């Protein structure tokens, strides 16, 4: 081996070592800063249900779903998020159209049932997640004063693939997609009736 190639190898080796140390140091600094895994979640207080959650998620059926907060829900018969109150009413005066284009918001009568007067009954509203595409129409309709604000959009952790940058976060006009440390508890909604 000539002297030149020995020197070259020495320089290369030093550069390599320097590179490894730099990379390790940078990774260490960053790891120190995060110290935890993080998840994406919708901040319900910033979210305006603009429909971009439906179209922008990398999944063909968005990981964002409408979620009903049962503690807040009024269990109303005339739910503004369930039935389209502007649609044509039937002979009993109940609107026939539904708000959800996917028919993903389901309801069932609960508690003591009065068979004669449907207005006297309570209804439980549950989102069918296999159909919900996160368009947020029901969330908008449930906002006070029409509703209780019990429906909200939420990133479902069991569906979210955790991209290194959330595709919805990039386009969200209200900066409503936030980073939360794991375990990620969604911030509570402050919408009150």
């Amino acid at each position, binding site marked *: 081996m000539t002297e030149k190639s020995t020197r070259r190898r020495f320089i290369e080796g030093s550069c390599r070592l320097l590179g490894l140390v730099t990379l390790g140091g940078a990774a260490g600094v960053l790891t120190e800063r995060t110290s*935890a895994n993080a998840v994406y979640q919708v901040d319900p207080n910033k979210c305006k249900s603009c429909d971009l959650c439906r179209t922008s998620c990398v999944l063909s059926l968005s990981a964002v779903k409408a979620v009903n907060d049962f503690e807040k829900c009024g269990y109303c018969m005339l739910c503004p998020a369930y039935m389209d109150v502007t649609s044509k009413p039937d002979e009993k005066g109940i609107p026939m159209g539904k708000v959800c284009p996917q028919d993903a918001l389901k309801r069932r009568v609960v508690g003591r049932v009065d068979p004669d007067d449907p207005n006297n009954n309570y209804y439980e509203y549950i989102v069918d997640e296999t159909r919900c595409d996160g368009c947020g129409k029901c969330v908008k309709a449930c906002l006070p004063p029409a509703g209780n604000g019990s429906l909200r959009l939420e990133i479902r952790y069991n569906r979210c693939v955790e991209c290194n940058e959330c595709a919805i976060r*990039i386009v969200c006009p209200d900066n409503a997609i936030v980073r939360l440390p794991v375990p990620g*508890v969604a911030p509570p909604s402050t919408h009150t009736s």
Partner: protein
Amino acid sequence: MIAGVSRGLESVPARTRYLCLILVLVAAFASSIVSAQYQKKPPDFGGSYSFPSPTHPEPRTAWIRTLDVSLLAAGLGIGAWLILKKRSRNGLLLLNIGAIAYFGFYRKGCICPIGAIQNVTLALVDSHYMISLGVIAFFFLPLVAALLVGRVFCGGVCPLGAVQDIVLLRPIKVPETLDRALAWLRYVYLGLALWFAGWGLHLAIGSWKLDIGRRFLICEWDPFIGIFRVSGPFHMLAIGAAFIIGGMFVGRPYCRWLCPYGGLLSILSRVSWKNVVITPDKELDCGLCANSCPYGAIHQLRADRASCLSCARCYASCPREFEHHGRQAAAAPLIQVQRR
């Protein structure tokens, strides 16, 4: 505390003591009414109904979160072994298909080291930004691998590279000067991506204003992501299709001239510890490999570490490979010439 108060009250005359007690009781009753007004109670449903427990699914468990990182590390290790030790093009093809299947179609091209450049930049600029450990690992593992074994990530694990590698049909030779000039585009793109990820664009000239906040350019303009997701805006799908069709005749155009992460790997792999050596043992300088590289990475009959994408195509053109591994070389008849 209450015991202390009642003991203190014993010194007070009996009538005053009763008055105090009544006052305390009234105050307690009034406050309970006030709080009852503000307490939200569920309606009385009658019958036996209980709330469905709110279904908030847990984030993915730790071991699933580390699965991506482990697969990346395993892919890099297997890739290095296949390229440098086993010298197997077929094995590498299998690894490529696996990468397209998992990192491409299953993970939808996301999480990826190329995009992680922007996360890392943002995390360094903005201390409030939470970067996940997975993204950090994805950014640094291939860089470390490049220092040790060259651009194994490009050749083995990157789904974007694998897609272009697989569609390559009939590579045309790009003039070397043009190739080198175009390679500078990577660094222009890298600079733009860093700027937009960390700071965004805010311009104001007179009344004319341009306000583009922080954007992840690399993710937004990734030509292959639309293919992996089988959806996307029309212009992105069109760009993806153009790269695929162009990639049939020009070897891996995105990797060579546009990929910002490829640019980083290219710098680091210049001093890599191991790298692709076309001959299995001693170098012959026979020149039979000169035209075997579809990516223009063979300069002066050696694989150039900075631009070699570790695809293992050149091995088959080496006459020594035939002797060593019993494989049919592209120029098998010429081996006889070498022997004479």
